[in-house]
């Protein structure tokens, strides 16, 4: 259970709802099936500016949800995983 109050998409303001829809759409495109916004974005939902920041980060990582950023000598998601691994991040 999350440590703090979360505003989920059903109760989101229009501003928050737009970001929820973008993030969900971005991940849905990546995995090929409809998925909701991942949990990791939600802790900041009480402050829309930070939730939007999470959405902006997804935009730059995915070229605005297109998932067509040029790939270098190794998959960029491996960088994400390596940072998480060494952060002992359970998520």
């Amino acid at each position, binding site marked *: *259970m*999350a*440590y*703090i*109050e979360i505003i989920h998409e059903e109760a989101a303001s229009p501003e928050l709802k737009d970001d929820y829809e973008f993030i969900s759409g971005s*991940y849905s495109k*990546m*995995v090929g099936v409809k*998925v*909701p916004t*991942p*949990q*990791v*974005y*939600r*802790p*900041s939902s*009480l*402050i829309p*500016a*930070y939730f*939007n*920041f*999470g959405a*902006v*980060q997804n*935009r*730059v*990582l995915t*070229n605005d949800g297109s998932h067509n*950023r040029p790939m*270098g*000598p*190794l*998959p*960029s*998601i*491996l*960088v*994400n*995983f*390596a*940072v*998480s*691994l*060494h*952060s*002992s*991040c*359970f*998520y």
Partner: protein
Amino acid sequence: MIYPKADVARAVGEDPQTAPIPELHKAMFRFAELFVNRSWQASPESLDVMRVEGVSDRDLADWLQIACIQTWFTHSADAGGIPMDRDAVSGPVMFRERSFYHAQPAPELASTTNASVTATLGWLHAPCTGVQYETAARWAQNHYGFVPNLFKSVSACPDFYPRHQLALELLDGPQSKSLPAALHALVRATVIALDHSSYFEPSAESLLHREVEGVMNLDILRKDPSEHIRDQQSLVVLRFVHKMVKNAYKITGDDAQSFREAGLSDETYIDVFNTVAIQQSFDRLANCIGVAADTKPLLARNNA
């Protein structure tokens, strides 16, 4: 999938250096450990070992900024108490099983810093050209009155400027009414102090001078907060900051509850952990690129 075989994936989760994966992958995992745990010990040689594997400076700029962003995600998950989630994307994308996640004790933070940062822009090729760079530079000129070395140093891969601009705006001050500006400044400065961020340290000193009454400096902020903080709310917040910077994976619901017991709201908690996450993401990035401090503090002009 990157490691489609479950035994390889498990080996990577246990120890990437002994797993049957390419040397380039191992080098990247070593660099990630440096980035997360001791970025102030990075040196030009830390990047050279990647260049030897054929990695371009454009790719290095790309990966370092991805790692910078990932800092926010890991902190968001740890501070938010997000449970292991079958819907999480990383597992299905990369591995068949989720058992690779594990917790290792974080190494004690070493106080030694690498003295090899010279008075240069940074350790990456920085072309400082192109539409994306020019747009970011105009924003910075308007916001700070100059273009920070941090922006110039990542210009080999300019895709991330929109994120950095928004992040720096969010760091300008608290985003919740319940977090006082002085305490927000203490949060930022504490992160910078604990990260030994030579790039941000001058800015932190100026920020403290502007926002905090009394004697306060980065050496003091590196110490246990109970040694120098008397206000209960500030004590709770700065203890949390220390924990988040050093061992974010040890955060529990008790930490969020400690905020409430001190009369602080969930909004304050969110404002604090995001400030720590964003500041630390930049500290790690600047440390690992060896960015020289700007000649002026990196403080927004309209906050001066």
